[in-house]
């Protein structure tokens, strides 16, 4: 029998309009308790307005050993950065 609760990854939205950000992980028996635990562990200092939790096992991650083929090809493609356009001041922060 497995005695450990599953691991959950926690994402918190700090303010309305911002995106959820990964803040850490915790253990909980189910999703509802994971939300409650996240509230208690990660929002004690008024950090959030919304919480997402996802079981860590449900996340598929890229492999660190693949970083050559995955990321290096984009290093030489500076034209993909939108730095060649003049942006009018009225547009403000983008």
């Amino acid at each position, binding site marked *: 029998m497995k005695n450990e*609760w599953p691991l959950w990854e926690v994402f918190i939205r700090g303010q309305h309009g911002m995106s959820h950000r990964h803040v850490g992980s*915790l*253990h909980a*028996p189910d999703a509802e308790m994971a939300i*409650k*635990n996240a509230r*208690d*562990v990660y929002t*004690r200092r008024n950090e959030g307005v919304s919480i997402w939790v996802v079981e860590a096992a449900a996340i598929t991650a890229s492999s660190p050993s693949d970083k050559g083929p995955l990321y290096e090809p984009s290093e030489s493609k500076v034209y993909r950065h939108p730095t060649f356009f003049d942006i009018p001041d009225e547009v403000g922060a983008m």
Partner: protein
Amino acid sequence: MTAAAAKAQPALTQQEAFVQFLLRMGDNTLILGHRVSEWCGHAPVLEEDIALANIALDLIGQTQIWLGLAADVQGEGKSADDLAFLRDAWDFRNLLLVEMPNGDFGQTLMRQFLFDAWHGLMLEQLKSSSDERVAAIAEKASKEVAYHFERSAETVISLGDGTEESHNRMQAALDYLWPYVGEMFLSDEIDAAMEQAGIAPDPTTLRDAYDTRVSDVLAEATLTIPESRFAQKGGRTGQMHTEHLGHLLTQMQWLQRAYPGAKW
């Protein structure tokens, strides 16, 4: 009135009754807050440890405003800290339920659940108190307590309807603590004075809603409520606390007793 009659029946002034009511509210949160804080660093898992510490801190925060107001109304120049740290067991007005020992984690959560269910109902009523200060405290505290109740109820269900071991422990906790439930719904001349002034409800009126709230959760938790309605009492009147309160106070108050007036 003769002197003898006055001695036999010391009539409470409205102010004295109000102070007693405020002490009852503040002592409940103080003693339970301290009890829950005893888990700090000892809870079964880190997540529960932090959750319990949060609850304890909520309760101590509420204590500061209840006892602060009690001290103000009393008008003897005392502070909330004076009331918390310099009174002895017989001056405390908390329910016996909240001074009961933590026992195992299940017993702690069962005590929390039985108290939260009452606390939430009480604060809901106090939101419409004729005394604005009381209404303001209730407004703030009821949000915290709504969460406490949600959490304790859910844990009682998970453990009650969990393994055979957890079920048996929760049933034992319920059997042990049930005799301390009835005291929450007792009523005396202090409650009558509060009800008349529109400050607080008569506690007896909360019982039906409480029974519904609690029996729904306990049914889902597959736990059986003991049939006896026998109620241990003496906490909220200060007449007879359990032997556990003195030990708790010894720990909670030792610093102020050993080093009077110490600050940091």
